[in-house]
């Protein structure tokens, strides 16, 4: 029982929480075709408790096109605090291909705050 509690606690501790601040963030994930809607979404840590989902707007889709279905880091502004694992990029600044690290060997988080800004 004790073991089970420890395991459960560990999983709780591992799952990421949505960022509470606003500003420029770097997220690592994959841009995928939406299965039940039009367009594309950027997904981090798919299938885990840390999965974040950001719809890609039509305008951003043109810039995102070369990075679809590939491991990518997106640097983007979020100007409204996220309340759930569904987010919205207010402005995408950069797309970069990254080395996939599905087993989290490097222990890097799904997202990091690059520059803090006031929420709108």
């Amino acid at each position: 029982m004790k073991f089970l509690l420890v395991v459960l606690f560990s999983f709780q501790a591992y799952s990421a929480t949505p960022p509470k601040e606003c500003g420029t963030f770097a997220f690592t994930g994959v841009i995928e075709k939406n299965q039940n809607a039009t367009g594309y979404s950027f997904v981090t840590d798919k299938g885990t408790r840390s999965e974040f989902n950001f719809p890609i707007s039509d305008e951003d889709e043109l810039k995102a096109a070369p990075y679809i279905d590939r491991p990518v880091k997106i640097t983007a502004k979020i100007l409204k605090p996220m309340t759930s694992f569904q987010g919205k990029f207010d402005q995408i600044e950069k797309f970069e291909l990254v080395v996939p690290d599905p087993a989290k060997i490097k222990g890097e988080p799904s997202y990091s705050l690059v520059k803090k800004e006031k929420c709108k």
Partner: protein
Amino acid sequence: MIKTLSIVVLLMNMSPVLLASETNLIYFGGGGEPKDALTTQFDETARGLGEFYKANKNYSTTVSFNGGHPVTEGIIKDKFKGAKIEERFTVSSYKSVIQETIEKLSKNPPEIPEGGKILIFIDSHGGEKSGKTHSISTTAAALTNMNNVSDGTSASLDALEELTKLAEAKNVKLAIVDGSCHAGNSLPLANSKTCVISASGPKHYAYSTFTNAFVTQMKKGKNLEDVFLETREQLNGLGFPMISTPEGMSVQDEIYPALTPYMYYHDEYRGMALDKIDDYFRENNSDEQVCRREKEYDSLKAVLSLIEDINMVEKKSFFSSKVKMQKTVDLDGLRKKLDEYKKTQDDYIKKLRELSSTDLDKVETIKTDFYTTGTKYTYREILSTDYGKLIEGKDRDLARSGLPDSKRENLQRLKEFYQTAQQTKERLLRENPQFVKQQQLFDQLKSDEKVSFQVASGISHEAHTAYNAYYKYKQKQLKGLENPAPNPCRDFVL
């Protein structure tokens, strides 16, 4: 009697002041970190060095470190109570601390007497060679390039050269511990009185536990050479720490140049490329360079064999009178990793040699009647995009029922854009058929786990065994010399 006692008490009270000028610690760094962050990556080392300071209050200490990151600032205030603390690590505070130290040495009589000690500990982001040494980040700007930090906001370690010359002339022991990336570029600052220790080689990032381990090993009575060697033994991560002792210079000269490409990898840090392998391949695929690469690899293997040979011991068997030789240093693991990585690199170089040099970073703007401003792409991006799949995706979206007209119209416009982009891609391919292959090659490289941090750090880790064993052998060799070269790192006792 009372008078004598008073003088003794007075002298005892004065001793810390006298000692304070004999032993000096200067702590620089903490720059280049993102603004608005609470912490910096230098916090753990700051805590560790703070513990050394607490335990060795005889060090007259000046701290010019960070500024702007509350947690880091708190550590400095808490751990360095009693030290002279500059508010921020800027080019101006860096130069002013160096100037003050030069003045202390220049005064008559000098404030730092003959035989005195100055330990300069640097922990910041560092760039590749610039000038005689290299530059490190200050708090004036967040780092934007992991290879080049030389701009108006960075502090050049060339500024320490005058201090090293003066310390040598005044017979003062000086030590510079450079914990930054590319720190091996600081080794030219060494002289007969200046010990230089670096967290990495001149061509590598210091992506390791070097500074944390080093400050943990710093204990009163230990010399810096021993601290360095003990740190190296427990090092994790990637880097090739160096030391300016005669033994260190000799080992580094024999191992480092040939090992260099096998500690390169492709990765990124805070959105910045940690990349030397792309350029290495681009710059090393001519006949002559490939030939030199092979020779360097052979020389590396020869050194590894030598290190094993000199560390063989005789082993007598219970059942036989014959004496067998047994390895005490086994470098098979390193050899295996090197062979594997060399093969991966050779494959890339071979493929690159088959392709002519082309510029995939050229930019093309794709426009349509609707998207009149257009979107800019590099050739690399256009060539790596599967427009067929994107068009197919739009067809699937358009086949959905219940879409509002405005959405349908938008999907159609996107589809037309991808059709135009597809035509651009086809044109580029017609005009430059070699593009695809080259682009595929570099794209493959970027996500190839055989060219990753794990591979390079594995080699770096195994190479510590070779370095440490060879260093000890060189120590024994030099011990026998009648007039050994000066060893300011051994002479610098904490």
